[in-house]
Protein backbone atom coordinates (compact mmCIF):
# COMPACT_ATOMS: atom_id res chain seq x y z
CA UNK A 1 0.00 0.00 0.00
CA UNK A 2 2.95 2.32 0.58
CA UNK A 3 3.94 1.74 -3.04
CA UNK A 4 0.44 2.88 -4.12
CA UNK A 5 0.74 6.04 -2.03
CA UNK A 6 4.20 6.80 -3.46
CA UNK A 7 2.95 6.20 -7.01
CA UNK A 8 0.00 8.57 -6.47
CA UNK A 9 2.19 11.21 -4.82
CA UNK A 10 4.72 11.04 -7.63
CA UNK A 11 2.05 11.21 -10.31
CA UNK A 12 0.52 14.23 -8.61
CA UNK A 13 3.59 16.24 -7.60
CA UNK A 14 5.34 15.82 -10.94
CA UNK A 15 2.37 17.71 -12.40
CA UNK A 16 2.58 20.48 -9.79
CA UNK A 17 5.07 22.37 -11.91
CA UNK A 18 5.43 25.47 -9.74
CA UNK A 19 6.33 23.60 -6.56
CA UNK A 20 8.53 21.18 -8.45
CA UNK A 21 10.49 23.86 -10.29
CA UNK A 22 10.97 26.40 -7.52
CA UNK A 23 11.49 23.81 -4.82
CA UNK A 24 13.83 21.37 -6.47
CA UNK A 25 14.97 22.50 -9.93
CA UNK A 26 15.58 26.24 -9.58
CA UNK A 27 18.64 25.89 -7.30
CA UNK A 28 20.75 23.53 -9.45
CA UNK A 29 19.63 25.16 -12.68
CA UNK A 30 20.20 28.68 -11.37
CA UNK A 31 23.61 27.79 -9.95
CA UNK A 32 24.72 26.18 -13.21
CA UNK A 33 23.63 29.17 -15.31
CA UNK A 34 25.17 31.62 -12.85
CA UNK A 35 28.49 29.77 -12.82
CA UNK A 36 28.57 29.40 -16.61
CA UNK A 37 27.93 33.13 -17.03
CA UNK A 38 30.58 33.94 -14.44
CA UNK A 39 33.10 31.66 -16.17
CA UNK A 40 32.31 33.28 -19.52
CA UNK A 41 32.54 36.79 -18.09
CA UNK A 42 35.81 36.14 -16.26
CA UNK A 43 37.20 34.09 -19.15
CA UNK A 44 36.66 36.92 -21.66
CA UNK A 45 38.06 39.66 -19.40
CA UNK A 46 40.88 38.11 -17.44
CA UNK A 47 42.57 34.80 -16.81
CA UNK A 48 40.51 32.08 -15.19
CA UNK A 49 42.02 30.66 -11.98
CA UNK A 50 44.63 28.00 -12.40
CA UNK A 51 44.39 24.76 -10.55
CA UNK A 52 40.59 24.40 -10.41
CA UNK A 53 40.04 21.14 -8.55
CA UNK A 54 37.19 19.23 -10.21
CA UNK A 55 36.63 16.97 -7.20
CA UNK A 56 36.59 19.86 -4.76
CA UNK A 57 34.11 21.75 -6.95
CA UNK A 58 31.76 18.76 -7.01
CA UNK A 59 32.03 18.36 -3.22
CA UNK A 60 31.28 22.06 -2.80
CA UNK A 61 28.20 21.67 -4.97
CA UNK A 62 27.00 18.70 -2.95
CA UNK A 63 27.52 20.72 0.23
CA UNK A 64 25.25 23.55 -0.93
CA UNK A 65 22.32 21.88 0.80
CA UNK A 66 23.71 23.48 3.95
CA UNK A 67 23.33 27.01 2.58
CA UNK A 68 20.54 28.98 4.27
CA UNK A 69 19.92 30.87 1.02
CA UNK A 70 19.37 27.70 -1.00
CA UNK A 71 17.34 26.20 1.82
CA UNK A 72 14.68 28.87 1.11
CA UNK A 73 13.93 27.03 -2.13
CA UNK A 74 14.00 23.59 -0.55
CA UNK A 75 11.71 24.87 2.21
CA UNK A 76 9.31 26.17 -0.46
CA UNK A 77 9.35 22.76 -2.13
CA UNK A 78 8.75 20.98 1.18
CA UNK A 79 5.90 23.28 2.15
CA UNK A 80 4.19 22.98 -1.24
CA UNK A 81 4.44 19.19 -0.87
CA UNK A 82 3.21 18.93 2.72
CA UNK A 83 0.72 21.83 2.85
CA UNK A 84 -0.96 21.27 -0.50
CA UNK A 85 -3.65 18.85 0.69
CA UNK A 86 -4.66 21.28 3.45
CA UNK A 87 -4.67 24.24 1.10
CA UNK A 88 -6.83 22.53 -1.52
CA UNK A 89 -8.87 20.52 1.03
CA UNK A 90 -7.97 17.33 -0.79
CA UNK A 91 -7.09 15.08 2.14
CA UNK A 92 -10.73 13.96 1.99
CA UNK A 93 -10.05 12.50 -1.48
CA UNK A 94 -6.96 10.62 -0.38
CA UNK A 95 -7.34 9.43 3.21
CA UNK A 96 -10.16 6.96 2.47
CA UNK A 97 -7.95 5.32 -0.16
CA UNK A 98 -4.80 4.61 1.81
CA UNK A 99 -3.59 4.73 5.40
CA UNK A 100 -2.58 8.10 6.77
CA UNK A 101 0.85 6.74 7.69
CA UNK A 102 1.41 5.63 4.10
CA UNK A 103 0.18 8.91 2.61
CA UNK A 104 2.47 10.98 4.82
CA UNK A 105 5.39 8.57 4.41
CA UNK A 106 4.93 8.82 0.63
CA UNK A 107 5.37 12.58 0.86
CA UNK A 108 8.57 12.12 2.89
CA UNK A 109 9.91 9.56 0.45
CA UNK A 110 9.14 11.82 -2.49
CA UNK A 111 10.69 14.83 -0.78
CA UNK A 112 13.79 12.76 0.05
CA UNK A 113 14.10 11.58 -3.55
CA UNK A 114 13.71 15.09 -4.96
CA UNK A 115 16.24 16.65 -2.57
CA UNK A 116 18.71 13.84 -3.36
CA UNK A 117 18.30 14.46 -7.09
CA UNK A 118 18.60 18.20 -6.56
CA UNK A 119 21.85 17.79 -4.59
CA UNK A 120 23.25 15.44 -7.22
CA UNK A 121 22.32 18.00 -9.87
CA UNK A 122 24.18 20.67 -7.88
CA UNK A 123 27.29 18.45 -7.82
CA UNK A 124 26.93 17.68 -11.51
CA UNK A 125 26.37 21.36 -12.30
CA UNK A 126 29.58 22.29 -10.53
CA UNK A 127 31.42 19.60 -12.49
CA UNK A 128 30.03 20.96 -15.77
CA UNK A 129 30.96 24.54 -14.99
CA UNK A 130 34.48 23.45 -13.95
CA UNK A 131 34.91 21.57 -17.22
CA UNK A 132 33.54 24.59 -19.09
CA UNK A 133 36.11 26.79 -17.32
CA UNK A 134 38.71 24.28 -18.48
CA UNK A 135 37.55 24.74 -22.05
CA UNK A 136 37.92 28.49 -21.60
CA UNK A 137 41.52 28.05 -20.50
CA UNK A 138 41.45 27.33 -16.78
CA UNK A 139 43.72 24.62 -15.54
CA UNK A 140 41.55 21.83 -14.15
CA UNK A 141 42.91 19.19 -11.78
CA UNK A 142 41.22 15.79 -11.81
CA UNK A 143 39.75 14.42 -8.58
CA UNK A 144 42.08 12.77 -6.11
CA UNK A 145 41.73 9.38 -4.43
CA UNK A 146 39.72 10.71 -1.49
CA UNK A 147 37.11 12.22 -3.80
CA UNK A 148 34.50 9.41 -3.67
CA UNK A 149 34.54 9.41 0.14
CA UNK A 150 34.38 13.20 0.38
CA UNK A 151 31.61 13.40 -2.21
CA UNK A 152 29.53 10.63 -0.66
CA UNK A 153 29.97 11.95 2.89
CA UNK A 154 29.16 15.54 1.93
CA UNK A 155 26.15 14.43 -0.09
CA UNK A 156 24.74 12.32 2.75
CA UNK A 157 25.29 15.10 5.30
CA UNK A 158 23.67 17.77 3.14
CA UNK A 159 20.84 15.39 2.36
CA UNK A 160 20.29 14.69 6.06
CA UNK A 161 20.24 18.43 6.75
CA UNK A 162 17.61 18.93 4.05
CA UNK A 163 15.58 16.02 5.40
CA UNK A 164 15.53 17.75 8.80
CA UNK A 165 14.34 20.93 7.06
CA UNK A 166 11.64 18.94 5.26
CA UNK A 167 10.52 17.33 8.52
CA UNK A 168 10.32 20.77 10.18
CA UNK A 169 8.21 22.04 7.26
CA UNK A 170 6.01 18.93 7.41
CA UNK A 171 5.43 19.27 11.15
CA UNK A 172 4.54 22.94 10.83
CA UNK A 173 2.25 22.28 7.86
CA UNK A 174 0.46 19.44 9.64
CA UNK A 175 0.12 21.34 12.90
CA UNK A 176 -1.11 24.62 11.38
CA UNK A 177 -2.83 23.32 8.19
CA UNK A 178 -1.43 26.43 6.51
CA UNK A 179 1.15 27.21 3.82
CA UNK A 180 2.62 30.68 4.26
CA UNK A 181 3.20 30.38 8.01
CA UNK A 182 5.17 27.12 7.78
CA UNK A 183 7.21 28.49 4.87
CA UNK A 184 8.23 31.60 6.81
CA UNK A 185 8.95 29.56 9.93
CA UNK A 186 11.05 27.02 7.98
CA UNK A 187 13.06 29.83 6.38
CA UNK A 188 13.58 31.46 9.79
CA UNK A 189 14.70 28.07 11.11
CA UNK A 190 17.41 27.92 8.42
CA UNK A 191 18.57 31.50 8.83
CA UNK A 192 18.58 31.39 12.64
CA UNK A 193 20.87 28.39 12.49
CA UNK A 194 23.11 30.03 9.90
CA UNK A 195 23.42 33.18 12.00
CA UNK A 196 24.07 31.20 15.17
CA UNK A 197 26.69 29.21 13.27
CA UNK A 198 28.40 32.39 12.09
CA UNK A 199 28.40 33.87 15.58
CA UNK A 200 29.02 30.85 17.74
CA UNK A 201 30.20 28.14 15.35
CA UNK A 202 33.98 28.39 15.37
CA UNK A 203 34.05 28.89 19.11
CA UNK A 204 31.83 25.90 19.58
CA UNK A 205 34.43 23.34 18.58
CA UNK A 206 34.18 21.89 22.07
CA UNK A 207 30.66 20.71 21.17
CA UNK A 208 28.15 21.69 23.80
CA UNK A 209 24.33 21.87 23.56
CA UNK A 210 24.40 24.16 20.54
CA UNK A 211 25.95 21.35 18.49
CA UNK A 212 22.66 19.51 18.72
CA UNK A 213 21.19 21.95 16.20
CA UNK A 214 21.01 20.22 12.80
CA UNK A 215 22.81 23.05 10.96
CA UNK A 216 25.70 22.94 13.43
CA UNK A 217 25.89 19.16 13.34
CA UNK A 218 25.92 19.11 9.55
CA UNK A 219 28.56 21.85 9.35
CA UNK A 220 30.85 19.99 11.74
CA UNK A 221 30.34 16.61 10.04
CA UNK A 222 31.04 18.08 6.58
CA UNK A 223 34.23 19.71 7.89
CA UNK A 224 35.32 16.40 9.40
CA UNK A 225 34.62 14.44 6.21
CA UNK A 226 36.50 16.84 3.94
CA UNK A 227 39.26 17.58 6.46
CA UNK A 228 38.75 21.33 6.29
CA UNK A 229 39.67 23.68 9.13
CA UNK A 230 36.76 24.82 11.24
CA UNK A 231 38.90 27.74 12.46
CA UNK A 232 42.52 28.60 11.78
CA UNK A 233 44.62 25.63 12.82
CA UNK A 234 41.65 23.67 14.23
CA UNK A 235 40.23 20.61 12.49
CA UNK A 236 37.04 18.73 13.16
CA UNK A 237 37.62 15.42 14.91
CA UNK A 238 35.77 12.12 14.70
CA UNK A 239 34.88 11.98 18.40
CA UNK A 240 32.85 15.16 17.94
CA UNK A 241 31.61 14.56 14.38
CA UNK A 242 30.06 11.17 15.09
CA UNK A 243 27.60 12.56 17.67
CA UNK A 244 26.74 15.15 15.01
CA UNK A 245 25.68 12.34 12.68
CA UNK A 246 23.55 10.88 15.46
CA UNK A 247 22.02 14.29 16.12
CA UNK A 248 21.04 14.63 12.46
CA UNK A 249 19.52 11.16 12.33
CA UNK A 250 17.81 11.78 15.65
CA UNK A 251 16.23 15.00 14.40
CA UNK A 252 14.91 13.26 11.29
CA UNK A 253 13.46 10.39 13.35
CA UNK A 254 12.02 12.65 16.04
CA UNK A 255 10.42 15.20 13.72
CA UNK A 256 9.23 12.50 11.31
CA UNK A 257 7.57 10.59 14.16
CA UNK A 258 5.96 13.79 15.45
CA UNK A 259 4.47 14.47 12.00
CA UNK A 260 3.09 10.93 11.73
CA UNK A 261 1.60 11.00 15.23
CA UNK A 262 0.06 14.41 14.68
CA UNK A 263 -1.41 13.48 11.30
CA UNK A 264 -2.63 10.10 12.54
CA UNK A 265 -4.64 11.74 15.32
CA UNK A 266 -5.84 14.73 13.33
CA UNK A 267 -9.55 15.29 12.67
CA UNK A 268 -10.27 16.42 9.13
CA UNK A 269 -13.73 18.02 9.31
CA UNK A 270 -12.21 20.80 7.20
CA UNK A 271 -8.68 20.50 5.96
Amino acid sequence: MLADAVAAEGYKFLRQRGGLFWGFCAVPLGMLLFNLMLDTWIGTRSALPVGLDLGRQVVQGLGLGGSAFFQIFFAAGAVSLFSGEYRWETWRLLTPRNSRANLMAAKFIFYAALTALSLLALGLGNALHTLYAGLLGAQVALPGGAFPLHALGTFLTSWAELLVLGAVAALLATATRAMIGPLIAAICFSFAQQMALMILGPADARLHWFAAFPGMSAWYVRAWITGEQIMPGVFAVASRALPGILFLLGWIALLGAAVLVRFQRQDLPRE
Partner: protein
Amino acid sequence: MTALIEAHDLTKRFGAVTALDRLSLSIPQGGVYGILGANGAGKSTFFRICLDLIRPSEGSVSLLGGVPGDTARRRRIGAMIETPRYHPFLTARETLTMLALASGVRDAPVERWLARVGLSDAAHRKVHHFSVGMKQRMGIAAALISSPELLILDEPTSGMDPVGIQEMRSLMRELADKDGVTILLSSHLLDEVQRVCDRVAIFARGKLVSEGRIDLLVGGREKLRLLATAPAALLAKLGARAVPDGDGALVTVTRTEAPALLRELVHDGVDLVEARWVGGELEKFYLEQVGHAG
Protein backbone atom coordinates in the same frame (compact mmCIF):
# COMPACT_ATOMS: atom_id res chain seq x y z
CA MET B 1 -30.29 -8.31 6.55
CA THR B 2 -26.50 -7.90 6.58
CA ALA B 3 -25.49 -4.49 7.95
CA LEU B 4 -22.74 -2.63 6.10
CA ILE B 5 -22.56 0.14 8.67
CA GLU B 6 -23.55 -0.12 12.32
CA ALA B 7 -23.27 2.81 14.69
CA HIS B 8 -23.66 2.39 18.44
CA ASP B 9 -24.20 5.40 20.71
CA LEU B 10 -22.10 7.50 18.37
CA THR B 11 -21.29 10.93 19.76
CA LYS B 12 -19.12 13.63 18.24
CA ARG B 13 -18.47 16.95 19.87
CA PHE B 14 -16.66 19.93 18.36
CA GLY B 15 -15.97 22.06 21.40
CA ALA B 16 -19.34 23.04 22.82
CA VAL B 17 -21.23 21.82 19.76
CA THR B 18 -22.57 18.26 19.77
CA ALA B 19 -22.77 17.21 16.12
CA LEU B 20 -23.85 13.63 16.84
CA ASP B 21 -25.66 12.70 20.05
CA ARG B 22 -25.70 8.97 20.96
CA LEU B 23 -26.70 7.97 17.46
CA SER B 24 -27.38 4.28 16.85
CA LEU B 25 -28.11 3.16 13.32
CA SER B 26 -27.83 0.05 11.18
CA ILE B 27 -27.52 0.44 7.42
CA PRO B 28 -28.28 -2.75 5.48
CA GLN B 29 -26.50 -4.08 2.43
CA GLY B 30 -28.12 -3.40 -0.93
CA GLY B 31 -30.30 -0.67 -2.34
CA VAL B 32 -30.18 3.06 -1.85
CA TYR B 33 -30.31 4.36 1.71
CA GLY B 34 -31.14 8.01 2.29
CA ILE B 35 -30.04 10.11 5.22
CA LEU B 36 -32.10 13.23 5.74
CA GLY B 37 -31.71 16.14 8.05
CA ALA B 38 -31.43 19.89 8.20
CA ASN B 39 -28.06 21.62 7.89
CA GLY B 40 -26.09 20.82 11.02
CA ALA B 41 -28.14 17.69 11.77
CA GLY B 42 -24.97 15.57 11.74
CA LYS B 43 -25.16 13.87 8.34
CA SER B 44 -21.72 14.92 7.08
CA THR B 45 -20.20 14.27 10.50
CA PHE B 46 -21.59 10.73 10.36
CA PHE B 47 -20.13 10.21 6.88
CA ARG B 48 -16.75 11.60 7.94
CA ILE B 49 -16.61 9.21 10.89
CA CYS B 50 -17.42 6.30 8.55
CA LEU B 51 -14.51 7.39 6.35
CA ASP B 52 -12.16 7.85 9.33
CA LEU B 53 -11.71 11.53 8.50
CA ILE B 54 -12.73 12.32 12.07
CA ARG B 55 -12.91 10.18 15.20
CA PRO B 56 -15.99 9.86 17.43
CA SER B 57 -15.89 11.41 20.90
CA GLU B 58 -17.82 8.41 22.23
CA GLY B 59 -19.44 5.28 20.87
CA SER B 60 -18.34 3.17 17.94
CA VAL B 61 -19.05 2.49 14.32
CA SER B 62 -18.57 -0.73 12.42
CA LEU B 63 -17.87 -0.51 8.72
CA LEU B 64 -18.17 -3.62 6.54
CA GLY B 65 -17.66 -5.69 9.67
CA GLY B 66 -14.57 -3.86 10.90
CA VAL B 67 -13.40 -0.48 12.10
CA PRO B 68 -13.22 2.59 9.80
CA GLY B 69 -9.49 2.83 10.55
CA ASP B 70 -8.90 -0.37 8.57
CA THR B 71 -7.63 0.81 5.18
CA ALA B 72 -8.51 -2.45 3.42
CA ARG B 73 -12.16 -1.94 4.40
CA ARG B 74 -12.16 1.75 3.55
CA ARG B 75 -10.88 0.90 0.08
CA ARG B 76 -14.15 -0.95 -0.53
CA ILE B 77 -15.95 2.37 -0.18
CA GLY B 78 -16.28 5.24 -2.60
CA ALA B 79 -17.27 8.62 -1.23
CA MET B 80 -18.07 12.17 -2.17
CA ILE B 81 -18.35 14.40 0.87
CA GLU B 82 -19.93 17.83 0.45
CA THR B 83 -18.67 19.90 -2.48
CA PRO B 84 -15.66 17.96 -3.71
CA ARG B 85 -12.27 19.70 -3.92
CA TYR B 86 -9.53 18.90 -6.38
CA HIS B 87 -5.89 19.62 -7.04
CA PRO B 88 -5.91 22.74 -9.22
CA PHE B 89 -3.08 21.55 -11.45
CA LEU B 90 -4.63 18.20 -12.46
CA THR B 91 -7.03 17.54 -15.33
CA ALA B 92 -10.11 15.36 -14.89
CA ARG B 93 -8.31 12.38 -16.42
CA GLU B 94 -5.20 12.93 -14.28
CA THR B 95 -7.29 13.33 -11.12
CA LEU B 96 -8.99 9.98 -11.63
CA THR B 97 -5.72 8.28 -12.54
CA MET B 98 -4.02 9.66 -9.41
CA LEU B 99 -6.90 8.61 -7.16
CA ALA B 100 -6.94 5.14 -8.71
CA LEU B 101 -3.20 4.83 -8.01
CA ALA B 102 -3.73 5.87 -4.38
CA SER B 103 -6.39 3.16 -4.11
CA GLY B 104 -4.02 0.56 -5.53
CA VAL B 105 -5.91 0.26 -8.82
CA ARG B 106 -3.64 0.11 -11.85
CA ASP B 107 -5.18 0.53 -15.32
CA ALA B 108 -8.40 1.95 -13.88
CA PRO B 109 -11.22 2.43 -16.41
CA VAL B 110 -10.85 6.21 -16.29
CA GLU B 111 -12.41 6.92 -19.68
CA ARG B 112 -15.40 4.67 -18.94
CA TRP B 113 -16.23 6.52 -15.72
CA LEU B 114 -15.72 9.91 -17.31
CA ALA B 115 -18.16 8.88 -20.03
CA ARG B 116 -20.63 7.51 -17.49
CA VAL B 117 -20.83 10.85 -15.68
CA GLY B 118 -20.86 12.82 -18.93
CA LEU B 119 -17.38 14.35 -18.70
CA SER B 120 -15.62 12.74 -21.67
CA ASP B 121 -15.35 16.04 -23.51
CA ALA B 122 -13.80 17.73 -20.46
CA ALA B 123 -11.30 14.95 -19.67
CA HIS B 124 -8.31 17.09 -20.64
CA ARG B 125 -9.47 20.19 -18.74
CA LYS B 126 -8.27 21.21 -15.27
CA VAL B 127 -10.98 20.21 -12.77
CA HIS B 128 -10.36 23.44 -10.87
CA HIS B 129 -12.08 25.36 -13.69
CA PHE B 130 -15.16 23.13 -13.78
CA SER B 131 -18.61 24.44 -12.89
CA VAL B 132 -20.18 23.26 -9.60
CA GLY B 133 -22.32 20.71 -11.43
CA MET B 134 -19.32 19.33 -13.31
CA LYS B 135 -17.35 19.08 -10.06
CA GLN B 136 -20.22 17.06 -8.60
CA ARG B 137 -20.14 14.70 -11.57
CA MET B 138 -16.38 14.46 -11.22
CA GLY B 139 -16.82 13.63 -7.53
CA ILE B 140 -19.08 10.74 -8.41
CA ALA B 141 -16.58 9.44 -10.96
CA ALA B 142 -13.82 9.77 -8.33
CA ALA B 143 -15.91 7.83 -5.84
CA LEU B 144 -16.57 5.07 -8.37
CA ILE B 145 -13.08 4.75 -9.86
CA SER B 146 -12.07 1.95 -7.47
CA SER B 147 -15.32 -0.03 -8.07
CA PRO B 148 -16.58 0.21 -4.48
CA GLU B 149 -19.18 -1.98 -2.75
CA LEU B 150 -20.51 0.96 -0.78
CA LEU B 151 -20.92 4.43 -2.19
CA ILE B 152 -21.38 7.41 0.14
CA LEU B 153 -22.77 10.48 -1.62
CA ASP B 154 -23.27 13.67 0.34
CA GLU B 155 -25.50 16.07 -1.63
CA PRO B 156 -24.47 14.58 -5.00
CA THR B 157 -26.88 16.65 -7.09
CA SER B 158 -26.18 19.99 -5.44
CA GLY B 159 -25.54 22.55 -8.18
CA MET B 160 -26.64 20.26 -11.00
CA ASP B 161 -29.16 21.19 -13.67
CA PRO B 162 -32.45 19.23 -13.95
CA VAL B 163 -31.10 16.99 -16.70
CA GLY B 164 -28.01 16.25 -14.62
CA ILE B 165 -30.15 15.45 -11.59
CA GLN B 166 -32.22 13.01 -13.62
CA GLU B 167 -29.07 11.38 -15.02
CA MET B 168 -27.60 11.01 -11.53
CA ARG B 169 -30.84 9.49 -10.27
CA SER B 170 -30.75 6.92 -13.08
CA LEU B 171 -27.08 6.23 -12.42
CA MET B 172 -27.70 5.63 -8.72
CA ARG B 173 -30.57 3.21 -9.36
CA GLU B 174 -28.54 1.45 -12.03
CA LEU B 175 -25.56 1.06 -9.70
CA ALA B 176 -27.77 -0.29 -6.94
CA ASP B 177 -29.93 -2.56 -9.10
CA LYS B 178 -27.46 -3.82 -11.72
CA ASP B 179 -24.01 -3.50 -10.14
CA GLY B 180 -25.11 -4.39 -6.59
CA VAL B 181 -23.54 -1.27 -5.07
CA THR B 182 -25.06 -0.14 -1.78
CA ILE B 183 -25.57 3.62 -1.88
CA LEU B 184 -25.75 5.88 1.13
CA LEU B 185 -27.20 9.16 0.01
CA SER B 186 -27.74 12.48 1.71
CA SER B 187 -29.85 15.12 0.03
CA HIS B 188 -32.14 18.01 0.83
CA LEU B 189 -34.19 17.25 -2.29
CA LEU B 190 -36.84 15.10 -0.62
CA ASP B 191 -38.67 14.33 -3.83
CA GLU B 192 -35.41 13.01 -5.26
CA VAL B 193 -34.81 10.91 -2.15
CA GLN B 194 -38.30 9.44 -2.33
CA ARG B 195 -37.81 8.54 -5.98
CA VAL B 196 -34.41 6.93 -5.60
CA CYS B 197 -34.14 5.56 -2.04
CA ASP B 198 -35.46 2.32 -0.57
CA ARG B 199 -34.95 3.27 3.07
CA VAL B 200 -34.31 6.51 4.93
CA ALA B 201 -33.03 7.68 8.27
CA ILE B 202 -33.94 11.13 9.54
CA PHE B 203 -31.46 13.00 11.71
CA ALA B 204 -32.30 16.01 13.84
CA ARG B 205 -29.79 17.75 16.09
CA GLY B 206 -27.44 14.78 15.92
CA LYS B 207 -30.07 12.21 16.89
CA LEU B 208 -31.91 9.60 14.87
CA VAL B 209 -35.62 10.47 14.88
CA SER B 210 -36.97 8.02 12.34
CA GLU B 211 -35.76 5.13 10.22
CA GLY B 212 -37.29 2.57 7.89
CA ARG B 213 -38.52 1.69 4.41
CA ILE B 214 -40.02 4.73 2.71
CA ASP B 215 -43.16 2.93 1.59
CA LEU B 216 -43.84 1.80 5.15
CA LEU B 217 -43.02 5.18 6.70
CA VAL B 218 -45.32 7.15 4.44
CA GLY B 219 -47.55 4.36 3.12
CA GLY B 220 -50.12 4.36 5.94
CA ARG B 221 -50.68 8.06 5.42
CA GLU B 222 -51.58 8.12 1.74
CA LYS B 223 -55.09 8.27 0.39
CA LEU B 224 -56.51 7.83 -3.09
CA ARG B 225 -57.96 11.05 -4.45
CA LEU B 226 -60.71 10.46 -7.01
CA LEU B 227 -62.31 12.97 -9.30
CA ALA B 228 -65.52 12.08 -11.18
CA THR B 229 -67.97 13.87 -13.46
CA ALA B 230 -70.64 13.46 -10.73
CA PRO B 231 -68.97 14.00 -7.35
CA ALA B 232 -72.14 13.42 -5.32
CA ALA B 233 -72.72 10.05 -6.96
CA LEU B 234 -69.10 9.12 -6.32
CA LEU B 235 -69.34 9.96 -2.61
CA ALA B 236 -72.62 8.11 -2.30
CA LYS B 237 -71.09 5.04 -3.92
CA LEU B 238 -68.03 5.07 -1.64
CA GLY B 239 -69.95 5.66 1.58
CA ALA B 240 -67.92 5.74 4.80
CA ARG B 241 -64.67 4.94 2.98
CA ALA B 242 -64.46 8.45 1.53
CA VAL B 243 -64.62 12.05 2.62
CA PRO B 244 -65.23 15.05 0.34
CA ASP B 245 -62.14 16.92 -0.81
CA GLY B 246 -63.03 19.96 -2.92
CA ASP B 247 -64.70 18.65 -6.05
CA GLY B 248 -63.36 15.15 -5.45
CA ALA B 249 -63.20 12.45 -2.77
CA LEU B 250 -60.39 11.18 -0.54
CA VAL B 251 -60.61 7.42 -0.19
CA THR B 252 -58.99 5.35 2.56
CA VAL B 253 -57.76 2.32 0.70
CA THR B 254 -54.51 0.36 0.38
CA ARG B 255 -52.57 0.17 -2.85
CA THR B 256 -53.42 -3.52 -3.07
CA GLU B 257 -57.14 -2.86 -2.79
CA ALA B 258 -57.18 0.14 -5.14
CA PRO B 259 -57.44 -1.67 -8.54
CA ALA B 260 -60.49 -3.63 -7.41
CA LEU B 261 -62.15 -0.48 -6.10
CA LEU B 262 -61.58 1.36 -9.39
CA ARG B 263 -62.94 -1.57 -11.38
CA GLU B 264 -66.02 -1.63 -9.15
CA LEU B 265 -66.67 2.11 -9.63
CA VAL B 266 -66.34 1.88 -13.39
CA HIS B 267 -68.58 -1.17 -13.43
CA ASP B 268 -71.20 0.79 -11.44
CA GLY B 269 -71.17 3.56 -14.04
CA VAL B 270 -69.12 6.22 -12.26
CA ASP B 271 -67.24 8.35 -14.81
CA LEU B 272 -63.79 8.74 -13.27
CA VAL B 273 -61.71 11.69 -14.47
CA GLU B 274 -58.64 11.29 -12.25
CA ALA B 275 -57.21 8.94 -9.63
CA ARG B 276 -53.95 9.74 -7.79
CA TRP B 277 -52.26 9.04 -4.48
CA VAL B 278 -51.87 11.99 -2.11
CA GLY B 279 -50.54 12.52 1.40
CA GLY B 280 -47.69 10.00 0.99
CA GLU B 281 -45.02 12.58 0.29
CA LEU B 282 -41.80 12.09 2.16
CA GLU B 283 -41.55 15.85 2.59
CA LYS B 284 -44.64 15.98 4.81
CA PHE B 285 -43.45 13.05 6.90
CA TYR B 286 -39.96 14.56 7.19
CA LEU B 287 -41.26 17.96 8.32
CA GLU B 288 -43.44 16.32 10.94
CA GLN B 289 -40.55 14.25 12.27
CA VAL B 290 -38.12 17.14 12.35
CA GLY B 291 -40.79 19.37 13.86
CA HIS B 292 -41.40 16.88 16.66
CA ALA B 293 -37.69 16.56 17.32
CA GLY B 294 -37.22 20.32 17.38
